[in-house]
């Protein structure tokens, strides 16, 4: 399209093509898709428009009044673009359909003052923990616009109103754009305070996520979609047993294949934080990924698997049984002598539970594109911290962070596994591009992804309790055995104890112990880490304690959480909306579970049926969440539904099998996950305390779902399922 045609078009944001004067006076074309009266984002979200006036690092205002909000977090479908934009639009007071979102410039953040404060995107913490400084940025911009207008109009700033993109005072009125340049120069003597929830006009409204339209036509750009001039492709294979050595490979056998360029070796650097997941291996570089992958598969490779070649699920289970008899680290103790009281009790129970390794299996396989030149490095990395690749590559190649630029794309899933920067693949791509001085895209095959993802660690837990005369527990004792590499050492103790160490049930004497066993399989956070494993365990054992004492499971939980308002609110809502009952014919069951995760309390009532042959059908899940506050109920409901499917996938069908030091699961035919026919109806309710605390939303929907289903299975069949995947258990009954 030539510029002549373009300038004749009506200049509206709602047209497909937007014309903007570039900073250098040239014409810049931005492509936008029509949104339904909503804010928008471009398919290539790192393409920052250049014509707006910057009020602060978070936002610019264009001449036509469009507000561009720069989001420093990653978008993995959890709604970062929308949440950050809503929080700023709320304070700035600008119409939502005049907002567009882009990703912030991480080079600026890392090298020039860290203006975005936090760039990591994990732990369900964006809204609950970061809303103060994000909303502050919007409020500050609004007040500076008011001061600028007040100075021009000769009134005091308190006499200027800022509403929906318009400044007004008496007969004076102007769009924000008119005072944007002046506002950028204003320093406030005192920064404004942010709004309280009763003052919100946009937050709290169900708001479609801004990037939905570009995700239904294939235009949304993921890291794996990056195409650069002169780019080459690499397929990689690392030692199947992590930390094993690359003994030899025979590049000569494949070097004459069409398109094959070279082989590049990788070396593990154990013990260095950012590099410890870089494994020993080899890449084949070619002019297409298919040619690289085909050649790699044909190349003979010999590995020295090292000392971990005998590790297996069975060896870990045996170690757990041994450690069940050994005192572990005490992470929580209330009252006195819980163990002795249980030992002396005539009314006690004991159960052992297990959750195996799980993998993230994001639908977008692990990949990264890096272009290294003498004066500039560009990166497309599927990380949950877009600032991390700058530090990782600067460290790995010894380059100045000022030369490194991150192009933030959409992530095809993350789920905690891309925290810290998708480190291994980003380093691999940097290594190859540095050697070849060409852009390179590294893609892990699904098999490589399953083998070398950082996995969710397994746990074995023994629980004991003794009951008093009321049938309620008077003593509780748990001893957990975790197997992990660096994960539990770094963020493990807290993660490993979640939901059990800090359970809400007010047992007068209780003690939780934990063993962290070093294992060679690299581990990482995995959507609702700890709470997913432990929620399955403690919420079934809660039912075991309740039923042993003659209590209804829901009434037991209400009794045991007396005085804990956030929990009571969730449980009472479940009672109100779920129709929970233990009085159903055999083959049908309802189950309850409630778990705190990332500051929110989520409860589930599951309804299942199990036929006599043991075939399980999930009929319905009712999810109730208390996150304190809720800035976008639509986005919130999406997250609660999705998290439930996430964790039910692992509990019902997943589970990695470790044998001979590596996993025997290789791809989706041997790592089964929930599919459409198995998905129940899911109903989401909010029960918000709204009394000063904020909880997260991305993860808490997962943990209560599997134990609620397992508790329902118990009522349907009389069978207690204490390990996962449930699909490996015989649920038949007669």
């Amino acid at each position, binding site marked *: 399209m030539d510029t002549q045609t373009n300038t004749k078009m009506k200049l509206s944001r709602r047209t497909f093509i937007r014309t903007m004067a570039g900073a250098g006076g040239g014409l810049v074309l931005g492509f936008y*898709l*029509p949104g*339904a009266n909503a804010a928008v984002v471009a398919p290539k979200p790192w393409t920052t428009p250049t014509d707006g006036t910057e009020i602060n690092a978070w936002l610019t205002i264009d001449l036509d009044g469009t507000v561009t909000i720069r989001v420093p977090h990653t978008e*993995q*479908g*959890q709604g970062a673009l929308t949440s950050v934009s809503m929080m700023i639009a709320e304070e700035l007071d600008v119409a939502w359909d005049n907002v567009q979102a882009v990703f912030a410039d991480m080079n600026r953040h890392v090298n020039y003052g860290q203006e975005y404060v936090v760039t990591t995107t994990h732990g369900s913490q964006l809204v609950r923990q970061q809303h103060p400084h994000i909303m502050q940025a919007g409020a500050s911009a609004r007040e500076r616009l008011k001061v600028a207008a007040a100075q021009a109009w000769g009134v005091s700033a308190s006499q200027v109103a800022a509403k929906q993109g318009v400044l007004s005072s008496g007969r004076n009125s102007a769009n924000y754009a008119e005072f944007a340049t002046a506002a950028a120069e204003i320093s406030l003597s005192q920064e404004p305070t942010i709004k309280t929830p009763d003052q919100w006009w946009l937050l709290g409204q169900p708001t*479609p*996520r801004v*990037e*939905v*339209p570009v*995700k*239904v*036509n*294939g*235009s*949304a*750009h*993921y890291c*794996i*979609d990056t*195409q650069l001039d002169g780019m080459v*492709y690499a397929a990689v294979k690392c030692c199947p047993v992590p930390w094993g050595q690359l003994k030899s490979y025979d590049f000569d056998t494949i070097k004459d294949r*069409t398109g094959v360029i070279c082989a590049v070796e990788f070396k593990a650097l154990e013990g260095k934080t950012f590099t410890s997941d870089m494994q020993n291996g080899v890449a084949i570089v070619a002019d*297409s*990924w*298919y*040619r690289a992958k085909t050649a790699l598969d044909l190349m003979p490779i010999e590995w020295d698997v090292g000392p971990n070649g005998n590790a297996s699920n069975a060896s870990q289970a045996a170690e757990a049984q041994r450690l069940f008899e050994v005192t572990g680290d005490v992470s929580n103790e209330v009252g006195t002598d819980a163990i002795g009281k249980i030992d002396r009790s005539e009314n006690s129970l004991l159960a052992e539970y297990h959750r195996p390794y799980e993998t993230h*299996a*994001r*639908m*977008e*396989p692990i990949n990264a594109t890096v272009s290294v030149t003498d004066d500039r490095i560009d990166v497309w990395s599927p990380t949950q911290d877009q600032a991390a690749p700058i530090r990782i590559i600067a460290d790995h190649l010894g380059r100045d962070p000022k030369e490194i630029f991150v192009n933030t794309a*959409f*992530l*095809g*899933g*993350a*789920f905690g596994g891309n925290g810290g920067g998708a480190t291994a693949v980003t380093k691999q791509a940097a290594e190859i591009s540095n050697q070849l001085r060409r852009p390179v895209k590294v*893609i892990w095959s*699904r098999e490589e992804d399953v083998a070398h993802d950082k996995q969710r660690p397994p746990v074995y837990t023994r629980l004991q309790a003794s009951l008093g005369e009321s049938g309620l527990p008077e003593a509780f004792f748990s001893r957990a055995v975790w197997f992990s590499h660096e994960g539990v050492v770094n963020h493990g103790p807290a993660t490993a104890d979640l939901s059990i160490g800090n359970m809400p049930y007010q047992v007068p004497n209780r003690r939780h112990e934990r063993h962290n066993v070093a294992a060679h399989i690299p581990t990482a956070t995995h959507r609702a880490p700890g709470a997913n494993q432990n929620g399955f365990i403690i919420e079934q054992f809660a039912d075991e304690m309740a039923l042993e004492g003659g209590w209804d499971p829901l009434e037991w939980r209400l009794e045991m959480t007396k005085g804990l308002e956030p929990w009571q609110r969730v449980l009472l809502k479940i009672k109100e909306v779920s129709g929970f009952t233990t009085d159903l014919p055999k083959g049908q069951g309802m189950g309850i579970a409630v778990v705190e995760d990332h500051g929110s309390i989520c409860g589930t009532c599951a309804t299942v049926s199990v036929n006599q042959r043991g075939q399980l059908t999930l009929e319905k899940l009712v999810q109730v969440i208390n996150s304190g506050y809720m800035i976008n109920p*639509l986005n919130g409901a*999406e997250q609660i*539904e*999705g*998290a*439930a*499917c*996430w964790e039910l*996938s692992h509990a019902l069908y997943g589970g990695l099998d470790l044998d001979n030091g590596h996993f025997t699961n290789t*791809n*989706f*035919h041997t790592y089964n*996950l*929930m*599919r*459409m*026919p198995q*998905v129940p109806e*899911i109903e989401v309710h909010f029960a918000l305390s709204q009394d000063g605390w904020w909880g997260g939303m991305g993860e808490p929907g997962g943990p209560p779902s599997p134990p609620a289903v397992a508790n329902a299975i118990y009522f349907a069949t009389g069978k207690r399922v204490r390990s996962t995947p449930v699909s490996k258990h015989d649920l038949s009954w007669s």
Partner: protein
Amino acid sequence: MAFSISVNGTTYEVGAEPETPLLWVLRDNIGLTGTKFGCGIAQCGVCTVHVDGQPVRSCITPASSAVGRQITTIEGLSENNDHPVQQAWIENSVPQCGYCQSGQIMSAAALLSRTPEPTDNEIDTAMAGNLCRCGTYPRIRKAVHRAVEIYQGSKA
């Protein structure tokens, strides 16, 4: 080695081994990256495209087998995001990370073209080959029903 294939109504001359999966020809030779790579063994469905109107997993379909046939990818489903399935997907806020959604949408569009009013069971069966890790399944089910209404409304 070169051959021609027709994608979204345009003919492309492709230099690749004939056994190269259609997925990689679409993505790396032609540059249509809306069709995604997920597993390489037809287990996840993110690579679903239409060949002569039928949904196929392009990661295991040799490109040469599509010579002389009409290939439609997500980019060719509509010009303005206004295919009934796309409209229904937007209305129900289906995509989260979005990576699997090209495949989901192509599977759903193929289902509706052969079964205009599918039951829940028919939806489950037709969509069982498409994995979603974000757990958008309940919304996909609703959106397929909504797409039926949009189809019928557009005919009325």
